[in-house]
Protein backbone atom coordinates (compact mmCIF):
# COMPACT_ATOMS: atom_id res chain seq x y z
CA UNK A 1 0.00 0.00 0.00
CA UNK A 2 1.46 3.34 -0.97
CA UNK A 3 0.85 6.76 0.43
CA UNK A 4 -0.45 9.03 -2.28
CA UNK A 5 0.90 12.44 -3.02
CA UNK A 6 -1.48 15.33 -2.60
CA UNK A 7 -2.08 17.23 -5.80
CA UNK A 8 -0.69 20.73 -5.65
CA UNK A 9 -2.36 23.13 -3.28
CA UNK A 10 -4.73 25.57 -4.93
CA UNK A 11 -3.27 28.96 -5.75
CA UNK A 12 -4.45 31.67 -3.41
CA UNK A 13 -5.19 33.71 -6.56
CA UNK A 14 -7.80 31.14 -7.53
CA UNK A 15 -9.99 32.02 -4.58
CA UNK A 16 -12.55 34.67 -5.29
CA UNK A 17 -14.58 34.48 -2.10
CA UNK A 18 -14.42 32.37 1.02
CA UNK A 19 -16.71 31.24 3.80
CA UNK A 20 -15.00 29.33 6.51
CA UNK A 21 -16.25 27.28 9.40
CA UNK A 22 -19.67 26.63 8.01
CA UNK A 23 -21.66 23.95 9.69
CA UNK A 24 -23.36 21.07 7.96
CA UNK A 25 -26.71 22.73 8.75
CA UNK A 26 -25.65 25.94 7.04
CA UNK A 27 -24.66 24.05 3.95
CA UNK A 28 -27.96 22.23 4.06
CA UNK A 29 -29.96 25.41 4.26
CA UNK A 30 -27.85 26.89 1.46
CA UNK A 31 -28.81 24.00 -0.83
CA UNK A 32 -32.48 24.48 0.05
CA UNK A 33 -32.20 28.20 -0.68
CA UNK A 34 -30.78 27.41 -4.11
CA UNK A 35 -33.60 24.96 -4.71
CA UNK A 36 -36.22 27.48 -3.61
CA UNK A 37 -34.84 29.95 -6.10
CA UNK A 38 -35.70 27.54 -8.90
CA UNK A 39 -32.20 26.18 -9.37
CA UNK A 40 -31.98 22.46 -10.08
CA UNK A 41 -29.84 21.15 -7.22
CA UNK A 42 -28.08 17.86 -7.92
CA UNK A 43 -26.65 15.87 -5.06
CA UNK A 44 -24.89 12.53 -4.52
CA UNK A 45 -27.49 10.01 -3.68
CA UNK A 46 -27.31 6.47 -2.45
CA UNK A 47 -29.66 3.96 -4.00
CA UNK A 48 -29.46 0.18 -4.29
CA UNK A 49 -25.90 0.13 -3.04
CA UNK A 50 -24.52 2.55 -5.60
CA UNK A 51 -23.97 6.28 -5.65
CA UNK A 52 -25.60 8.36 -8.33
CA UNK A 53 -25.99 12.09 -8.84
CA UNK A 54 -29.66 13.03 -8.88
CA UNK A 55 -31.82 16.09 -8.22
CA UNK A 56 -32.30 16.62 -4.51
CA UNK A 57 -35.43 14.75 -3.48
CA UNK A 58 -38.29 15.51 -1.20
CA UNK A 59 -36.53 13.81 1.71
CA UNK A 60 -33.55 16.14 1.14
CA UNK A 61 -31.12 13.26 1.62
CA UNK A 62 -27.64 13.27 0.21
CA UNK A 63 -24.20 11.89 0.91
CA UNK A 64 -21.18 13.72 2.13
CA UNK A 65 -18.81 10.80 2.22
CA UNK A 66 -18.34 8.31 -0.56
CA UNK A 67 -15.61 7.24 -2.92
CA UNK A 68 -15.55 8.30 -6.54
CA UNK A 69 -15.25 4.69 -7.64
CA UNK A 70 -18.67 3.94 -6.12
CA UNK A 71 -20.40 6.39 -8.44
CA UNK A 72 -22.34 4.62 -11.15
CA UNK A 73 -23.91 7.64 -12.74
CA UNK A 74 -21.41 10.47 -12.98
CA UNK A 75 -22.36 14.15 -12.98
CA UNK A 76 -21.26 14.46 -16.62
CA UNK A 77 -24.76 13.30 -17.60
CA UNK A 78 -26.22 16.69 -16.69
CA UNK A 79 -23.99 18.41 -19.23
CA UNK A 80 -23.69 15.59 -21.74
CA UNK A 81 -26.79 13.41 -21.35
CA UNK A 82 -26.98 9.82 -22.54
CA UNK A 83 -29.85 10.71 -24.88
CA UNK A 84 -30.30 14.06 -26.54
CA UNK A 85 -32.45 15.52 -29.30
CA UNK A 86 -30.44 17.41 -31.88
CA UNK A 87 -33.03 18.52 -34.43
CA UNK A 88 -36.22 17.46 -36.16
CA UNK A 89 -37.09 16.90 -39.79
CA UNK A 90 -40.50 17.73 -41.13
CA UNK A 91 -41.20 16.70 -44.69
CA UNK A 92 -44.12 17.82 -46.80
CA UNK A 93 -43.32 19.27 -50.22
CA UNK A 94 -40.19 20.63 -48.67
CA UNK A 95 -37.90 18.99 -46.19
CA UNK A 96 -37.47 21.30 -43.25
CA UNK A 97 -34.84 20.96 -40.62
CA UNK A 98 -35.92 22.39 -37.28
CA UNK A 99 -33.36 23.09 -34.65
CA UNK A 100 -34.10 21.93 -31.14
CA UNK A 101 -32.37 24.31 -28.81
CA UNK A 102 -32.03 22.99 -25.28
CA UNK A 103 -33.23 25.33 -22.56
CA UNK A 104 -31.75 23.82 -19.46
CA UNK A 105 -32.49 25.09 -15.98
CA UNK A 106 -29.78 26.70 -13.92
CA UNK A 107 -28.12 23.73 -12.29
CA UNK A 108 -25.98 23.37 -9.19
CA UNK A 109 -24.15 20.10 -8.67
CA UNK A 110 -23.04 19.51 -5.12
CA UNK A 111 -20.63 16.92 -3.77
CA UNK A 112 -18.65 16.31 -6.95
CA UNK A 113 -15.17 14.83 -6.56
CA UNK A 114 -12.02 16.33 -8.01
CA UNK A 115 -11.70 13.48 -10.49
CA UNK A 116 -15.20 14.09 -11.90
CA UNK A 117 -14.45 17.81 -12.17
CA UNK A 118 -11.26 17.01 -14.06
CA UNK A 119 -13.30 14.71 -16.31
CA UNK A 120 -15.71 17.52 -17.19
CA UNK A 121 -12.79 19.76 -18.11
CA UNK A 122 -11.53 16.95 -20.32
CA UNK A 123 -14.92 16.63 -22.02
CA UNK A 124 -14.73 20.39 -22.68
CA UNK A 125 -11.74 19.69 -24.91
CA UNK A 126 -13.94 17.66 -27.23
CA UNK A 127 -17.23 19.48 -27.12
CA UNK A 128 -16.08 23.09 -26.73
CA UNK A 129 -13.49 22.86 -29.48
CA UNK A 130 -14.35 23.95 -32.99
CA UNK A 131 -17.09 23.35 -34.07
CA UNK A 132 -18.55 24.00 -30.61
CA UNK A 133 -21.28 21.57 -29.64
CA UNK A 134 -24.20 23.80 -28.90
CA UNK A 135 -26.10 21.38 -26.68
CA UNK A 136 -23.07 20.70 -24.49
CA UNK A 137 -22.05 24.35 -24.37
CA UNK A 138 -25.54 25.49 -23.38
CA UNK A 139 -25.74 23.02 -20.52
CA UNK A 140 -22.19 23.70 -19.41
CA UNK A 141 -22.85 27.40 -19.13
CA UNK A 142 -25.82 27.01 -16.81
CA UNK A 143 -24.11 24.49 -14.54
CA UNK A 144 -22.25 25.46 -11.39
CA UNK A 145 -20.14 22.69 -9.87
CA UNK A 146 -19.08 22.38 -6.25
CA UNK A 147 -16.33 19.91 -5.47
CA UNK A 148 -16.06 18.44 -1.97
CA UNK A 149 -12.61 17.39 -0.86
CA UNK A 150 -12.15 13.66 -0.51
CA UNK A 151 -11.44 12.54 3.03
CA UNK A 152 -10.14 9.15 2.00
CA UNK A 153 -9.19 7.26 -1.12
CA UNK A 154 -11.39 4.39 -2.17
CA UNK A 155 -10.00 0.93 -2.88
CA UNK A 156 -10.15 1.53 -6.63
CA UNK A 157 -9.08 5.20 -6.69
CA UNK A 158 -5.84 6.36 -8.32
CA UNK A 159 -6.45 10.04 -9.07
CA UNK A 160 -3.10 10.96 -7.53
CA UNK A 161 -1.31 9.03 -10.27
CA UNK A 162 -3.25 10.88 -12.99
CA UNK A 163 -2.78 14.36 -11.50
CA UNK A 164 -6.53 14.84 -11.23
CA UNK A 165 -6.94 14.56 -7.48
CA UNK A 166 -7.40 14.31 -4.58
CA UNK A 167 -7.23 18.11 -4.63
CA UNK A 168 -8.68 19.76 -7.76
CA UNK A 169 -5.89 20.17 -10.30
CA UNK A 170 -4.98 23.74 -11.20
CA UNK A 171 -6.21 23.33 -14.79
CA UNK A 172 -9.36 21.55 -13.71
CA UNK A 173 -10.83 23.83 -11.06
CA UNK A 174 -14.47 23.69 -9.96
CA UNK A 175 -16.67 26.74 -9.41
CA UNK A 176 -16.75 26.08 -5.67
CA UNK A 177 -14.47 24.04 -3.47
CA UNK A 178 -15.69 22.68 -0.13
CA UNK A 179 -13.26 21.21 2.34
CA UNK A 180 -13.44 20.09 5.93
CA UNK A 181 -11.83 22.60 8.29
CA UNK A 182 -11.38 22.57 12.06
CA UNK A 183 -14.86 23.54 13.06
CA UNK A 184 -16.88 22.44 10.09
CA UNK A 185 -16.54 23.20 6.41
CA UNK A 186 -14.79 25.83 4.37
CA UNK A 187 -16.38 27.01 1.14
CA UNK A 188 -14.34 28.78 -1.49
CA UNK A 189 -15.73 30.33 -4.65
CA UNK A 190 -13.25 29.95 -7.51
CA UNK A 191 -15.20 31.47 -10.39
CA UNK A 192 -17.86 34.07 -11.04
CA UNK A 193 -20.49 31.32 -11.21
CA UNK A 194 -19.23 30.19 -7.82
CA UNK A 195 -19.56 33.69 -6.42
CA UNK A 196 -23.14 33.89 -7.64
CA UNK A 197 -24.04 30.61 -5.97
CA UNK A 198 -22.26 31.53 -2.78
CA UNK A 199 -23.95 34.91 -2.82
CA UNK A 200 -27.24 33.13 -2.29
CA UNK A 201 -26.12 31.85 1.05
CA UNK A 202 -26.56 33.47 4.43
CA UNK A 203 -23.11 32.40 5.54
CA UNK A 204 -20.60 35.00 6.63
CA UNK A 205 -17.73 35.55 4.29
CA UNK A 206 -14.15 35.55 5.47
CA UNK A 207 -10.73 36.42 4.21
CA UNK A 208 -9.42 33.69 1.92
CA UNK A 209 -6.58 31.74 3.46
CA UNK A 210 -3.24 32.23 1.73
CA UNK A 211 -3.01 28.69 0.60
CA UNK A 212 -5.56 25.93 0.37
CA UNK A 213 -4.08 22.55 0.67
CA UNK A 214 -4.96 19.39 2.37
CA UNK A 215 -3.16 18.70 5.58
CA UNK A 216 -4.09 15.08 5.37
CA UNK A 217 -2.31 12.52 3.28
CA UNK A 218 -4.57 10.04 1.62
CA UNK A 219 -3.49 6.43 1.28
CA UNK A 220 -3.94 5.01 -2.16
CA UNK A 221 -3.79 1.29 -2.70
CA UNK A 222 -3.60 1.71 -6.48
CA UNK A 223 -0.87 3.57 -8.29
CA UNK A 224 0.02 3.91 -11.95
CA UNK A 225 3.36 5.01 -13.34
CA UNK A 226 2.46 7.25 -16.27
CA UNK A 227 5.90 8.32 -17.43
CA UNK A 228 6.46 7.41 -21.07
CA UNK A 229 3.09 5.71 -21.34
CA UNK A 230 1.82 7.25 -24.61
CA UNK A 231 4.76 6.04 -26.69
CA UNK A 232 5.01 2.75 -24.81
CA UNK A 233 1.39 1.87 -25.57
CA UNK A 234 1.77 2.97 -29.19
CA UNK A 235 4.54 0.39 -29.55
CA UNK A 236 2.73 -2.35 -27.62
CA UNK A 237 -0.21 -3.19 -29.84
CA UNK A 238 0.90 -6.82 -30.13
CA UNK A 239 1.32 -7.36 -26.38
CA UNK A 240 -0.07 -10.70 -25.20
CA UNK A 241 -2.02 -9.07 -22.35
CA UNK A 242 -4.80 -7.90 -24.66
CA UNK A 243 -5.37 -11.36 -26.08
CA UNK A 244 -5.01 -13.03 -22.68
CA UNK A 245 -7.65 -10.85 -21.05
CA UNK A 246 -9.93 -10.84 -24.09
CA UNK A 247 -9.96 -14.64 -23.98
CA UNK A 248 -10.17 -15.11 -20.24
CA UNK A 249 -12.09 -12.12 -18.89
CA UNK A 250 -13.34 -9.30 -21.10
CA UNK A 251 -16.96 -9.81 -22.13
CA UNK A 252 -17.21 -6.76 -24.37
CA UNK A 253 -20.10 -5.65 -22.14
CA UNK A 254 -19.21 -1.88 -22.43
CA UNK A 255 -19.71 -1.25 -18.69
CA UNK A 256 -16.30 0.43 -18.48
CA UNK A 257 -17.18 3.03 -21.08
CA UNK A 258 -20.62 3.68 -19.62
CA UNK A 259 -19.32 4.53 -16.16
CA UNK A 260 -16.15 6.30 -17.32
CA UNK A 261 -16.53 10.05 -16.76
CA UNK A 262 -14.29 10.99 -19.68
CA UNK A 263 -15.85 8.74 -22.32
CA UNK A 264 -17.53 10.79 -25.04
CA UNK A 265 -18.25 8.58 -28.05
CA UNK A 266 -21.77 8.89 -29.39
CA UNK A 267 -24.07 7.64 -32.11
CA UNK A 268 -26.72 9.41 -34.16
CA UNK A 269 -29.97 7.81 -35.06
CA UNK A 270 -33.17 8.93 -36.73
CA UNK A 271 -36.47 8.23 -35.04
CA UNK A 272 -39.49 8.56 -37.34
CA UNK A 273 -42.96 9.00 -35.90
CA UNK A 274 -46.02 7.00 -36.90
CA UNK A 275 -47.25 9.81 -39.13
CA UNK A 276 -43.96 9.25 -40.98
CA UNK A 277 -43.34 12.79 -42.15
CA UNK A 278 -41.68 13.81 -38.90
CA UNK A 279 -38.29 12.49 -37.85
CA UNK A 280 -36.18 13.24 -34.80
CA UNK A 281 -32.37 13.17 -35.03
CA UNK A 282 -31.17 11.84 -31.71
CA UNK A 283 -27.75 11.43 -30.22
CA UNK A 284 -26.91 8.80 -27.63
CA UNK A 285 -23.80 7.51 -25.89
CA UNK A 286 -21.96 4.82 -27.80
CA UNK A 287 -18.97 2.67 -26.92
CA UNK A 288 -15.80 1.60 -28.68
CA UNK A 289 -16.27 -1.67 -26.80
CA UNK A 290 -19.47 -2.41 -28.69
CA UNK A 291 -19.05 -5.04 -31.38
CA UNK A 292 -20.62 -2.82 -34.05
CA UNK A 293 -18.77 0.38 -33.27
CA UNK A 294 -16.42 0.05 -36.25
CA UNK A 295 -18.71 -1.86 -38.62
CA UNK A 296 -18.27 -1.07 -42.30
CA UNK A 297 -20.18 -2.52 -45.21
CA UNK A 298 -18.20 -5.71 -45.66
CA UNK A 299 -16.37 -6.03 -42.41
CA UNK A 300 -15.38 -4.53 -39.09
CA UNK A 301 -12.04 -2.97 -38.28
CA UNK A 302 -12.19 -3.82 -34.58
CA UNK A 303 -14.14 -7.02 -34.45
CA UNK A 304 -12.19 -8.89 -31.79
CA UNK A 305 -12.51 -8.22 -28.08
CA UNK A 306 -8.74 -8.13 -28.05
CA UNK A 307 -8.72 -5.14 -30.42
CA UNK A 308 -11.51 -3.37 -28.56
CA UNK A 309 -9.90 -3.81 -25.16
CA UNK A 310 -6.65 -2.53 -26.66
CA UNK A 311 -8.54 0.49 -27.99
CA UNK A 312 -9.94 1.36 -24.54
CA UNK A 313 -6.53 1.29 -22.84
CA UNK A 314 -4.66 2.87 -25.75
CA UNK A 315 -7.13 5.70 -26.16
CA UNK A 316 -7.10 6.72 -22.47
CA UNK A 317 -3.35 6.50 -21.97
CA UNK A 318 -1.90 7.16 -25.42
CA UNK A 319 -4.11 8.55 -28.20
CA UNK A 320 -5.71 11.11 -25.85
CA UNK A 321 -2.28 12.62 -25.22
CA UNK A 322 -1.63 12.99 -28.96
CA UNK A 323 -5.14 14.34 -29.54
CA UNK A 324 -5.71 16.64 -26.58
CA UNK A 325 -2.37 16.99 -24.79
CA UNK A 326 -3.46 15.14 -21.66
CA UNK A 327 -4.34 11.65 -20.47
CA UNK A 328 -7.98 10.72 -20.89
CA UNK A 329 -8.14 8.95 -17.52
CA UNK A 330 -8.81 10.68 -14.20
CA UNK A 331 -8.17 7.69 -11.96
CA UNK A 332 -11.70 7.35 -10.63
CA UNK A 333 -11.49 3.55 -10.62
CA UNK A 334 -15.00 2.99 -11.89
CA UNK A 335 -13.99 0.81 -14.85
CA UNK A 336 -12.60 -1.67 -12.35
CA UNK A 337 -15.51 -1.31 -9.92
CA UNK A 338 -18.05 -2.00 -12.62
CA UNK A 339 -16.27 -4.65 -14.68
CA UNK A 340 -18.12 -7.95 -14.11
CA UNK A 341 -14.85 -9.86 -14.44
CA UNK A 342 -12.56 -7.34 -12.70
CA UNK A 343 -10.50 -6.37 -15.72
CA UNK A 344 -8.05 -3.88 -14.23
CA UNK A 345 -6.69 -1.15 -16.50
CA UNK A 346 -3.73 -0.67 -14.15
CA UNK A 347 -2.79 -4.37 -14.33
CA UNK A 348 -2.89 -4.14 -18.11
CA UNK A 349 -0.52 -1.18 -18.15
CA UNK A 350 1.76 -2.82 -15.59
CA UNK A 351 1.94 -6.00 -17.67
CA UNK A 352 3.10 -3.92 -20.62
CA UNK A 353 5.56 -1.93 -18.53
CA UNK A 354 7.09 -5.03 -16.99
CA UNK A 355 7.39 -7.04 -20.21
CA UNK A 356 7.84 -4.66 -23.12
CA UNK A 357 7.03 -6.03 -26.56
CA UNK A 358 10.23 -6.82 -28.44
CA UNK A 359 10.44 -4.78 -31.67
Amino acid sequence: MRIGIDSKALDADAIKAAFDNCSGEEIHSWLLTLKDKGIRVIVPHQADGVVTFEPIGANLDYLFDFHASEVMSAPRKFIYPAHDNLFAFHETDNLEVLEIVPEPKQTFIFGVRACDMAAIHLLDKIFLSDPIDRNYSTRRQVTTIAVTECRSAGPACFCSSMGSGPMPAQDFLPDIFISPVDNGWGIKALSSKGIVACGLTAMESSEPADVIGSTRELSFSRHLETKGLPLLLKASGEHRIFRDLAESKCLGCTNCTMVCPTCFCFNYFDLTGIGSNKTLRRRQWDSCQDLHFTDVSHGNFRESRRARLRQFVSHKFSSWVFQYGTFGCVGCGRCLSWCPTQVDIIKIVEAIQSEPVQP
Partner: protein
Amino acid sequence: MITATIPAVGRIISRSVDAPGVFTIAIQSQSVQSFRPGQFNMIGVRGIGEAPISCSAIEKDSIYHTIRVVGNVTAALASMPQNAQVTLRGPYGTPWPIDDRCGDLLFVAGGIGIAALRAAIDEVVCHRGRFRNIYVLYGAHRPSDLIYGHEFEIWSEGSLTILKTVDIVPENDQWRGSIGLVSVLLDDIPIDLKQTTTFICGPERMMGFVATELIRRGQDSTSIYISMERRMRCGLGKCGHCMIGPYYVCKDGPVFAFDQIREWQDIAL
Protein backbone atom coordinates in the same frame (compact mmCIF):
# COMPACT_ATOMS: atom_id res chain seq x y z
CA MET B 1 -19.02 25.02 -44.75
CA ILE B 2 -22.54 23.71 -44.75
CA THR B 3 -23.38 24.15 -41.11
CA ALA B 4 -21.62 21.75 -38.83
CA THR B 5 -24.28 19.61 -37.23
CA ILE B 6 -27.53 20.93 -38.66
CA PRO B 7 -27.68 19.70 -42.24
CA ALA B 8 -28.65 21.60 -45.34
CA VAL B 9 -31.30 20.22 -47.64
CA GLY B 10 -30.95 19.41 -51.33
CA ARG B 11 -32.85 17.70 -54.11
CA ILE B 12 -31.67 14.90 -56.35
CA ILE B 13 -32.10 16.48 -59.77
CA SER B 14 -30.41 13.90 -61.93
CA ARG B 15 -29.00 10.43 -61.72
CA SER B 16 -27.15 8.02 -63.95
CA VAL B 17 -26.13 4.42 -63.57
CA ASP B 18 -22.40 3.93 -63.97
CA ALA B 19 -22.02 0.21 -63.37
CA PRO B 20 -23.84 -2.59 -61.53
CA GLY B 21 -24.46 -1.17 -58.06
CA VAL B 22 -22.81 2.19 -58.84
CA PHE B 23 -24.62 5.41 -59.66
CA THR B 24 -24.01 9.15 -59.79
CA ILE B 25 -26.47 11.73 -58.52
CA ALA B 26 -26.52 15.49 -58.77
CA ILE B 27 -27.85 17.18 -55.65
CA GLN B 28 -29.03 20.72 -56.06
CA SER B 29 -28.97 22.94 -53.01
CA GLN B 30 -28.69 26.60 -52.15
CA SER B 31 -26.00 25.62 -49.69
CA VAL B 32 -23.66 23.87 -52.13
CA GLN B 33 -20.16 25.15 -51.61
CA SER B 34 -16.93 24.40 -53.35
CA PHE B 35 -14.81 21.56 -52.09
CA ARG B 36 -11.19 20.55 -52.37
CA PRO B 37 -10.59 17.21 -54.16
CA GLY B 38 -10.50 14.44 -51.60
CA GLN B 39 -13.16 15.90 -49.33
CA PHE B 40 -16.54 14.36 -48.68
CA ASN B 41 -20.08 15.25 -47.67
CA MET B 42 -22.27 13.44 -45.16
CA ILE B 43 -25.32 12.71 -47.31
CA GLY B 44 -28.44 11.89 -45.35
CA VAL B 45 -31.79 10.26 -45.98
CA ARG B 46 -34.45 11.21 -43.45
CA GLY B 47 -35.26 8.34 -41.14
CA ILE B 48 -32.33 6.23 -42.25
CA GLY B 49 -29.14 8.06 -41.54
CA GLU B 50 -26.10 9.56 -43.19
CA ALA B 51 -23.12 8.22 -45.09
CA PRO B 52 -19.81 9.85 -46.03
CA ILE B 53 -19.46 10.13 -49.81
CA SER B 54 -16.57 11.71 -51.72
CA CYS B 55 -17.34 14.88 -53.61
CA SER B 56 -16.95 14.35 -57.35
CA ALA B 57 -17.75 17.63 -59.09
CA ILE B 58 -19.74 20.83 -58.85
CA GLU B 59 -21.78 22.42 -61.58
CA LYS B 60 -23.40 25.72 -60.62
CA ASP B 61 -25.52 24.93 -57.54
CA SER B 62 -25.37 21.17 -57.86
CA ILE B 63 -22.89 18.75 -56.42
CA TYR B 64 -22.15 15.37 -57.97
CA HIS B 65 -21.53 12.25 -55.96
CA THR B 66 -20.70 8.80 -57.33
CA ILE B 67 -21.97 6.16 -54.96
CA ARG B 68 -21.76 2.38 -54.57
CA VAL B 69 -24.66 0.62 -52.88
CA VAL B 70 -23.31 -1.03 -49.74
CA GLY B 71 -25.85 -0.35 -46.99
CA ASN B 72 -29.10 1.28 -45.94
CA VAL B 73 -28.33 4.88 -46.83
CA THR B 74 -26.71 4.14 -50.18
CA ALA B 75 -29.49 1.72 -51.11
CA ALA B 76 -32.05 4.44 -50.34
CA LEU B 77 -30.16 7.01 -52.40
CA ALA B 78 -30.08 4.54 -55.29
CA SER B 79 -33.84 4.27 -55.48
CA MET B 80 -35.12 7.72 -54.54
CA PRO B 81 -37.23 9.40 -57.23
CA GLN B 82 -36.49 12.57 -59.16
CA ASN B 83 -36.55 15.64 -56.90
CA ALA B 84 -36.38 13.58 -53.74
CA GLN B 85 -34.91 15.54 -50.86
CA VAL B 86 -31.74 14.59 -49.05
CA THR B 87 -29.57 16.29 -46.47
CA LEU B 88 -26.01 17.48 -46.85
CA ARG B 89 -23.28 18.30 -44.36
CA GLY B 90 -19.81 19.26 -45.45
CA PRO B 91 -17.44 19.43 -47.19
CA TYR B 92 -15.41 17.69 -44.53
CA GLY B 93 -11.95 16.25 -44.32
CA THR B 94 -8.49 16.82 -45.72
CA PRO B 95 -7.87 17.16 -49.45
CA TRP B 96 -5.35 15.44 -51.70
CA PRO B 97 -2.19 17.56 -51.34
CA ILE B 98 -1.97 18.71 -54.94
CA ASP B 99 -1.37 22.42 -54.39
CA ASP B 100 2.23 22.14 -53.38
CA ARG B 101 3.15 19.47 -55.94
CA CYS B 102 4.77 19.60 -59.31
CA GLY B 103 6.84 17.05 -61.18
CA ASP B 104 5.28 13.65 -61.86
CA LEU B 105 1.98 12.43 -60.47
CA LEU B 106 0.66 8.89 -60.21
CA PHE B 107 -2.99 8.16 -59.47
CA VAL B 108 -3.86 4.56 -58.57
CA ALA B 109 -7.54 3.71 -58.23
CA GLY B 110 -9.14 0.45 -57.17
CA GLY B 111 -12.84 -0.04 -57.80
CA ILE B 112 -15.03 2.78 -56.50
CA GLY B 113 -11.84 4.50 -55.31
CA ILE B 114 -11.76 6.25 -58.68
CA ALA B 115 -14.63 8.40 -57.41
CA ALA B 116 -12.47 9.88 -54.65
CA LEU B 117 -9.69 10.62 -57.13
CA ARG B 118 -11.83 12.01 -59.94
CA ALA B 119 -11.88 15.62 -58.72
CA ALA B 120 -8.12 15.50 -58.16
CA ILE B 121 -7.52 14.28 -61.71
CA ASP B 122 -9.89 16.97 -63.03
CA GLU B 123 -7.88 19.56 -61.15
CA VAL B 124 -4.47 18.50 -62.41
CA VAL B 125 -5.80 18.32 -65.96
CA CYS B 126 -6.96 21.92 -65.51
CA HIS B 127 -3.46 22.91 -64.48
CA ARG B 128 -1.65 20.52 -66.80
CA GLY B 129 1.28 22.83 -67.37
CA ARG B 130 2.36 22.61 -63.73
CA PHE B 131 3.11 18.92 -63.95
CA ARG B 132 5.38 16.77 -66.05
CA ASN B 133 4.13 13.20 -66.46
CA ILE B 134 0.73 12.22 -65.10
CA TYR B 135 -0.23 8.53 -64.89
CA VAL B 136 -3.60 7.04 -63.99
CA LEU B 137 -3.77 3.33 -63.17
CA TYR B 138 -7.30 2.06 -62.66
CA GLY B 139 -8.38 -1.44 -61.72
CA ALA B 140 -11.87 -2.85 -61.27
CA HIS B 141 -13.31 -6.29 -60.70
CA ARG B 142 -14.80 -6.81 -64.16
CA PRO B 143 -14.88 -4.69 -67.31
CA SER B 144 -18.49 -3.69 -66.62
CA ASP B 145 -17.35 -2.22 -63.27
CA LEU B 146 -15.08 0.35 -64.93
CA ILE B 147 -16.77 3.75 -64.69
CA TYR B 148 -16.24 7.35 -65.84
CA GLY B 149 -15.83 6.43 -69.50
CA HIS B 150 -16.66 9.99 -70.52
CA GLU B 151 -14.25 11.50 -67.99
CA PHE B 152 -11.47 9.18 -69.12
CA GLU B 153 -11.93 10.36 -72.71
CA ILE B 154 -11.48 13.96 -71.61
CA TRP B 155 -8.50 13.07 -69.46
CA SER B 156 -6.75 11.17 -72.24
CA GLU B 157 -6.92 14.36 -74.30
CA GLY B 158 -4.97 16.09 -71.56
CA SER B 159 -1.88 13.99 -72.22
CA LEU B 160 -2.26 11.68 -69.28
CA THR B 161 -1.01 8.12 -69.51
CA ILE B 162 -3.97 5.94 -68.60
CA LEU B 163 -3.93 2.18 -68.04
CA LYS B 164 -6.79 -0.02 -66.88
CA THR B 165 -6.99 -3.57 -65.63
CA VAL B 166 -9.61 -5.97 -64.35
CA ASP B 167 -9.57 -9.06 -62.12
CA ILE B 168 -11.77 -11.27 -64.28
CA VAL B 169 -13.31 -11.16 -67.75
CA PRO B 170 -16.72 -12.87 -68.08
CA GLU B 171 -17.32 -15.08 -71.10
CA ASN B 172 -18.31 -13.14 -74.24
CA ASP B 173 -16.93 -9.90 -72.84
CA GLN B 174 -14.91 -7.96 -75.41
CA TRP B 175 -12.24 -6.83 -72.98
CA ARG B 176 -8.80 -6.95 -74.55
CA GLY B 177 -6.99 -4.98 -71.91
CA SER B 178 -4.87 -5.98 -68.99
CA ILE B 179 -5.96 -8.61 -66.49
CA GLY B 180 -4.47 -8.63 -63.01
CA LEU B 181 -3.68 -6.46 -60.04
CA VAL B 182 -3.39 -2.76 -60.64
CA SER B 183 0.16 -2.74 -59.31
CA VAL B 184 1.45 -4.87 -62.22
CA LEU B 185 0.54 -1.98 -64.54
CA LEU B 186 3.58 -0.25 -63.09
CA ASP B 187 5.69 -2.46 -65.37
CA ASP B 188 4.04 -0.84 -68.39
CA ILE B 189 4.84 2.79 -67.66
CA PRO B 190 8.24 4.50 -67.83
CA ILE B 191 7.72 6.11 -64.48
CA ASP B 192 10.53 7.53 -62.36
CA LEU B 193 9.15 6.87 -58.89
CA LYS B 194 11.76 9.03 -57.24
CA GLN B 195 10.25 12.11 -58.93
CA THR B 196 6.68 11.05 -58.33
CA THR B 197 3.94 11.88 -55.87
CA THR B 198 1.36 9.09 -55.67
CA PHE B 199 -2.30 9.25 -54.69
CA ILE B 200 -4.02 5.93 -54.08
CA CYS B 201 -7.66 5.19 -53.34
CA GLY B 202 -9.39 1.84 -53.19
CA PRO B 203 -10.04 -1.01 -50.76
CA GLU B 204 -7.76 -0.68 -47.75
CA ARG B 205 -5.83 -3.86 -48.46
CA MET B 206 -5.28 -2.73 -52.04
CA MET B 207 -3.91 0.66 -50.97
CA GLY B 208 -1.55 -1.17 -48.65
CA PHE B 209 -0.14 -3.53 -51.25
CA VAL B 210 0.15 -0.82 -53.89
CA ALA B 211 2.02 1.48 -51.50
CA THR B 212 4.26 -1.38 -50.38
CA GLU B 213 5.00 -2.29 -54.00
CA LEU B 214 5.81 1.32 -54.86
CA ILE B 215 8.23 1.52 -51.96
CA ARG B 216 9.79 -1.76 -53.06
CA ARG B 217 10.29 -0.24 -56.50
CA GLY B 218 12.09 2.75 -55.06
CA GLN B 219 9.48 5.39 -54.25
CA ASP B 220 10.07 7.44 -51.12
CA SER B 221 7.35 6.48 -48.66
CA THR B 222 6.81 10.12 -47.71
CA SER B 223 5.43 10.92 -51.15
CA ILE B 224 2.59 8.38 -51.07
CA TYR B 225 -0.91 9.48 -50.03
CA ILE B 226 -3.99 7.35 -49.47
CA SER B 227 -7.65 7.96 -48.67
CA MET B 228 -8.99 6.02 -45.70
CA GLU B 229 -12.56 5.16 -44.87
CA ARG B 230 -14.28 4.25 -41.64
CA ARG B 231 -17.78 4.18 -40.15
CA MET B 232 -18.71 7.81 -39.53
CA ARG B 233 -21.47 9.54 -37.63
CA CYS B 234 -20.64 13.14 -36.80
CA GLY B 235 -18.10 13.74 -39.56
CA LEU B 236 -16.32 16.35 -37.45
CA GLY B 237 -14.01 14.50 -35.11
CA LYS B 238 -16.12 14.11 -31.98
CA CYS B 239 -18.16 10.90 -32.02
CA GLY B 240 -15.15 8.60 -32.01
CA HIS B 241 -16.32 6.06 -34.60
CA CYS B 242 -13.66 6.77 -37.22
CA MET B 243 -10.66 6.95 -34.89
CA ILE B 244 -7.41 5.30 -36.00
CA GLY B 245 -4.83 5.79 -33.27
CA PRO B 246 -4.99 9.49 -32.49
CA TYR B 247 -6.49 10.43 -35.86
CA TYR B 248 -10.09 10.99 -36.83
CA VAL B 249 -10.50 9.86 -40.45
CA CYS B 250 -13.21 12.51 -40.93
CA LYS B 251 -11.11 15.41 -39.66
CA ASP B 252 -7.42 14.48 -39.88
CA GLY B 253 -8.18 12.49 -43.04
CA PRO B 254 -9.59 10.94 -45.16
CA VAL B 255 -6.41 11.73 -47.05
CA PHE B 256 -3.35 10.67 -45.08
CA ALA B 257 0.31 10.32 -45.88
CA PHE B 258 0.95 6.56 -45.98
CA ASP B 259 3.77 6.91 -43.45
CA GLN B 260 1.56 8.83 -41.05
CA ILE B 261 -1.20 6.26 -40.76
CA ARG B 262 0.51 2.90 -41.29
CA GLU B 263 1.98 2.62 -37.80
CA TRP B 264 -1.33 2.53 -35.91
CA GLN B 265 -3.59 -0.38 -34.94
CA ASP B 266 -6.77 -1.76 -36.49
CA ILE B 267 -5.96 -1.00 -40.10
CA ALA B 268 -5.78 -3.30 -43.11
CA LEU B 269 -2.94 -1.58 -44.96
